[in-house]
């Protein structure tokens, strides 16, 4: 499904990711975890093309390593940012409309992330929205797309009063439609949703496996 071979990434001659090999399988839920600076977000951004990496990245056996972000997006990759961008003069509906779906579907997507379409669809995506509202809207923009792979960078952080149960439901639905889910998280409750957990340390994958195999290693 999504396979990486010998993936490396450096900034100012410093290795951030070092010779990573892994295969994300179709319809599976992966959590990438590890301490701060382990390389989790860097790896996620390399997969999406937001970081320029070395090595091979295959999506359904097509090498996408040299493709730009928008080309990868068109092939069915999506990314939810840890810190969502704000836009002056751009409304929620404008962002959702990029994916050209009927208005009714935008309403459903917003409902899924606990935002009422009546209240939010025509609001500007600016700093008048709270951090939690922006975070849920960020999720909505990804869920709104027909994806093969969804990458979520700490989606549970700052989702305010919206319960974690709702987020679990969103991910379960996402996963049930045969899409591959990759979530960056430190949270054990997110790991509970995972088919496989990838533990990163010093820019490498230290181990991958079930939660019970990985949790004891988190303090290493």
């Amino acid at each position, binding site marked *: 499904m999504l396979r990486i071979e010998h993936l490396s990434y450096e900034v100012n001659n410093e290795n951030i990711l070092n010779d990573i090999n892994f295969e994300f399988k179709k319809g599976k839920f992966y959590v990438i975890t590890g301490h701060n600076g382990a390389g989790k977000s860097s790896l996620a951004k390399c997969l*999406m093309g*937001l970081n320029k990496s070395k090595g091979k990245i295959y999506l359904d056996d097509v090498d996408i390593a040299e493709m*730009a*972000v*928008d080309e990868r*997006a*068109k092939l069915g*990759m*999506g*990314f939810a*940012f840890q*810190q*969502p*961008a*704000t*836009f*002056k*003069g*751009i*409304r929620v509906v*404008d*962002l959702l409309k*990029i*994916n050209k779906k009927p208005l009714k579907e935008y309403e459903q997507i917003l409902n899924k992330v606990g935002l009422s379409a009546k209240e939010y669809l025509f609001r500007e995506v600016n700093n008048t929205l709270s951090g939690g509202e922006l975070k849920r809207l960020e999720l909505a*923009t990804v869920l709104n*797309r027909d994806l093969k792979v969804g990458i979520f960078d700490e989606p549970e952080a700052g989702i305010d009063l919206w319960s974690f149960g709702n987020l679990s439901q969103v991910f379960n639905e996402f996963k049930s439609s045969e899409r591959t889910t990759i979530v960056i998280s430190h949270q054990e409750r997110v790991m509970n949703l995972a088919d496989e957990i990838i533990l990163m340390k010093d820019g490498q994958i230290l181990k991958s496996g079930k939660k019970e195999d990985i949790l004891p290693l988190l303090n290493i």
Partner: protein
Amino acid sequence: MDNNEELKKFMLKKVADITEFPEGAYNLRVDGVGVKRQNSENVQIVPKEDKSGIDIFIKENSPKQVVYIPVLIMNGGINDLVYNDFHIGQNSEVVIVAGCGIHNHTEHNSEHNGIHTFYVGKNAKVTYVEKHYGHGENIGKKVLNPVTTVYLDENATMNMDSTQMEGVDYAIRTTKGQLKAGATFVVNEKILTQNNQFANSIFNVELIGKQASTKIVSRAVAKDESKQEFHSNVSGNCECFGHIECDAILTDKANIIAVPQISALSADARLIHEATIGKIAGAQLEKLLTLGLSEKEAEDFIIKGFLS
């Protein structure tokens, strides 16, 4: 497109969002001459006798009037200077749609200088919509220098939406206001410059009556090698409120100078200014790329929203 009725309709649509004149009062000026005029029960448009221009009279207590006064310049080598005075009777409510479009397909410059003065009576409400647009491919420049002066009587309100779209090569845009007690003047200005265009926006608003208030919001986008300046001064000599906000996006080799000034001449005056200039934020571009837009599409999307 030739200089014909279709082109005029195209230009009218751009500057006044109409292709035909609706019922009610209007005045159309083309190439420096008034060509169509209509009055209504509550709106009288009278040509000036001593100079080029019109006086527009809105009767007192008139409910929800709409007046169109667009100007078109359809040729090169025209230098149009016009004085339009608006006399808004007290307690009346009016929407005035102005705007000027210059189509210049020649080597000669064309210029429109619209000197507009508003005398707004007590408790009256005015919405003033003004769009400026330049069209035509040649070295002849499209120049627009509007001067808008606003006198607001007690508790009068004026909302001014001023937009300079693409195609205007050179513009000095001057807006002045004097507000009596309880009056409110709100300005939303949007300017786009590209290539080697230049625009200078100048605001000078005096708050002279108790609880007078103004809010001036300017959003500007400068592309290519264009240049923009924004100079504003809000002064208050009593208990009043003023807010100036200049937000600008730069791309390529463009530059913008913003000089927001506030002058509090009384301890009771509450005045605020903000100015932000910068390129498109990387986080905004990245988000749109992940939604499948190319870099160019993403930039256009951000700019269109910013100026909407």
